């Protein structure tokens, strides 16, 4: 049960963190041209964006939960189980963003779920 809870935090923290950081970067706009001076200026702006810090905080929560998990669980269980982020991604795309999710993608999601079920009983 503890395993399930922490995997859920790792997956949801990581995914929500990605979304927040992506949102922050979209607010800033495309990095162009890809020169060091431009990158430095964009980074400066990124760290003054609220969503960036929310993203970083969420990713930190995910990372420390991963470390906590690894303090007792096998890495050959934990890392494959984090593939559930693809399941979260597909469900989020379908039900939050109302995107079309291709049947092949659902087949992949199903395989990931079956795989995680198998490793969680092993």
């Amino acid at each position, binding site marked *: 049960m503890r395993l399930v809870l922490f995997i859920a935090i790792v997956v949801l923290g990581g995914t929500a963190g990605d979304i927040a950081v992506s949102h922050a970067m979209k607010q800033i706009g495309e990095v162009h041209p890809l020169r060091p001076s431009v990158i430095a200026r964009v980074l400066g702006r990124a760290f003054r964006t609220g969503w960036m810090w929310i993203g970083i905080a969420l990713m930190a929560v995910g990372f420390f939960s991963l470390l906590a998990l690894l303090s007792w669980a096998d*890495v*050959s269980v934990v890392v494959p189980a984090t593939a559930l982020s693809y399941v979260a991604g597909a469900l989020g795309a379908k039900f939050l963003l109302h995107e079309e999710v291709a049947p092949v993608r659902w087949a*992949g*999601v199903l395989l990931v779920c079956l*795989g995680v079920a198998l490793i969680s009983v092993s």
Partner: protein
Amino acid sequence: MSARPLHKKTYALLASMVFFSSLGNVLLSRGMKQIGEIRDFSPAALATVFVKVFTNGSIWLGILSLLVFFVSYLLLLSWADFSYVQPASAIGYALVAVLGYFVLGEFVSMTRWTGVLFICAGVALVGGTEPRTGF
């Protein structure tokens, strides 16, 4: 640029990505096993764990390894499509189990290997809908 060097560079970076992400997680795992199971989640106990984590050599090597992974990933994404990179990197889920078995001596049962293979296939399918990167 001719197709050949790009082709080689793509494979080299993919290999680097898969290898260093798996190695990174295995090293983090070794470090956390050295620190010991976290049972007490009180702020004081977590502060002690925090200090142990950031003074552990394996953890730092793991973080370094994950940084190498991240740089390879970013470089690769600068020319390869995500829909090509993501399914190809699915093999990392198998590599982490292999490394767990050989480096950390984890017992990986037949059921677990089967689960890992299902996950690799599933992740490859999820991302592999439209691989477009020419190479």
